[in-house]
């Protein structure tokens, strides 16, 4: 099956690493001698590991990463719109969020160039491959992979939106602490606040006010999945902004009665857009 998001980013470092690994392995085999295979086979369906890069993130890195995440959400909403599960006010909400993210990507790139880095005009490939692509598969289905179409495309579209809006808000919240420039914090805050507002609006759209306003967890209560297996969404899920991974639950039930669950994290070293990353749209 053609991957939903073909690779757009190639780095000189990644090409050198592949070449270097090949040379190193050949040297190891030659030194040890014998005809045995160099490494054991992989077992199971674990994704191919991507070693963390050894570069250090700077303010330019964070801003380029932010731009790439904003553009990832633009792509996400374009695909969800193509799937056609939303209509009326729900589609208007998604259209507005997409437009906001387009604008925020431009802002993040302006900040990046002001900080001495290059603009980055591609969606974050790491997120497309590991989170957004798999999520979209559970909405659209994938016959080759035996993944059924969603049993409620509108529901899953909005739950995906909620997850990624919250993730982007958390990303900016973390970046406010991470960046060295105090001035930059001021610029990042409205970008994160807007994503947080998006997430809140989605929660109110999915749920029923006033029950969908404030999570019981803010006053020490429990939040448990309903009979359909979904944890309710709340406009205010926590008292303080959270940066922990979120479990995204979507898709039709499998034979065991379970739905697809994917913990979604904020960007880290493996998904940062470092200085040497080149965008190839």
């Amino acid at each position, binding site marked *: 099956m053609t991957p939903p998001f073909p690779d757009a980013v190639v780095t000189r470092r990644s090409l050198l690493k592949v070449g270097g690994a090949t040379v190193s392995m050949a040297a190891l085999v030659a030194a040890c001698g014998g005809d045995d295979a160099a490494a054991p086979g992989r077992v199971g369906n674990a994704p191919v590991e991507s070693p963390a890069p050894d570069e250090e993130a700077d*303010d330019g890195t964070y801003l380029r990463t932010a731009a790439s995440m904003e553009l990832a959400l633009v792509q996400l909403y374009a695909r969800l719109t193509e799937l056609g599960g939303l209509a009326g*006010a729900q589609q*208007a*909400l998604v259209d*507005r969020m997409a437009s*906001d993210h387009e*604008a*925020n990507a*431009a*802002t993040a790139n*302006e*900040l990046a160039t*002001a*900080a001495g880095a290059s603009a980055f005009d591609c969606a974050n490939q790491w997120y497309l491959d590991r989170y957004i692509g798999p999520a979209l598969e559970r909405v659209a289905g994938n016959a080759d992979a035996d993944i059924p179409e969603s049993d409620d495309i509108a529901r899953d579209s909005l739950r995906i939106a909620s997850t990624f809006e919250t993730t982007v*808000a*958390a990303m900016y*919240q973390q970046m*406010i*602490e991470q960046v*060295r*420039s*105090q*001035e*930059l*914090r*001021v*610029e990042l*805050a*409205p*970008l*994160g*606040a*807007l994503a*947080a*507002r*998006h*997430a*809140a*609006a989605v929660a*109110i759209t999915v749920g029923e*006010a*006033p*029950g969908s*306003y*404030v999570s019981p967890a*803010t*006053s020490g209560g429990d939040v448990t999945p309903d009979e359909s297996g979904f944890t309710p969404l709340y*406009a*205010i899920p*926590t*008292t*303080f*902004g959270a940066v922990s991974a979120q479990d995204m639950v979507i898709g039709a039930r499998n034979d065991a009665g379970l739905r697809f669950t994917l913990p979604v994290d904020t960007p880290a070293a493996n998904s940062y857009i470092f200085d040497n990353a080149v965008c190839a749209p």
Partner: protein
Amino acid sequence: MENPSRRRVLAAGLAGTALGLVDRRVASAGSTPPSPAPVTAEPEAQPTAEDAGLLAAAREAELASRDLYQLAIDAGAGGGDGTMEALRDDHAAYADVLSGLIGRDATQSRDEELFESLSAGFDSDDTAGVAAAAYDMESTLVATHSALLGQLKGRNGAKTIASILMVEARHCVVLADVAGLGDDLDALFVNDAEPRALTPVEG
């Protein structure tokens, strides 16, 4: 009822105060940002003495916000669904965490000027009307906290303020919905409130 996305009731109320307004609008999505100042040194973690004064002022604003919601609850606003209480409790929690951050510099008083300037909008059993007033207040808090991030030298203060403003932004969406503007995407997503200048509180 005034559209909360228009000129802020709160900003108009504060225009004549001695504190004045910070001569800077918080950047909104799509605006041209100024160039950030070049930085070479790693920011320190703990609040500096100057930070503590600003965080203490932020704490007093949180206490005023808490008391404004209590005023509304006592007047009969809220409809009994717990939303006003939850927002009140959030601001109480913010004041508590700021107290912990600044330690012995924490004062016990609220920002009386803020409270008095807004109390008329909260002292009512008209839930939608109170929500509109609260929306303005929360919008200004988000703008104020965003501006404060540029003044804090210590990372821990910035981290805490960031975790607060992200949820206060969500408060705005809830309040817009309570005020009957849940279908107004500008009311939900645009914050054109001006930041309120915080006068450092001496410890």
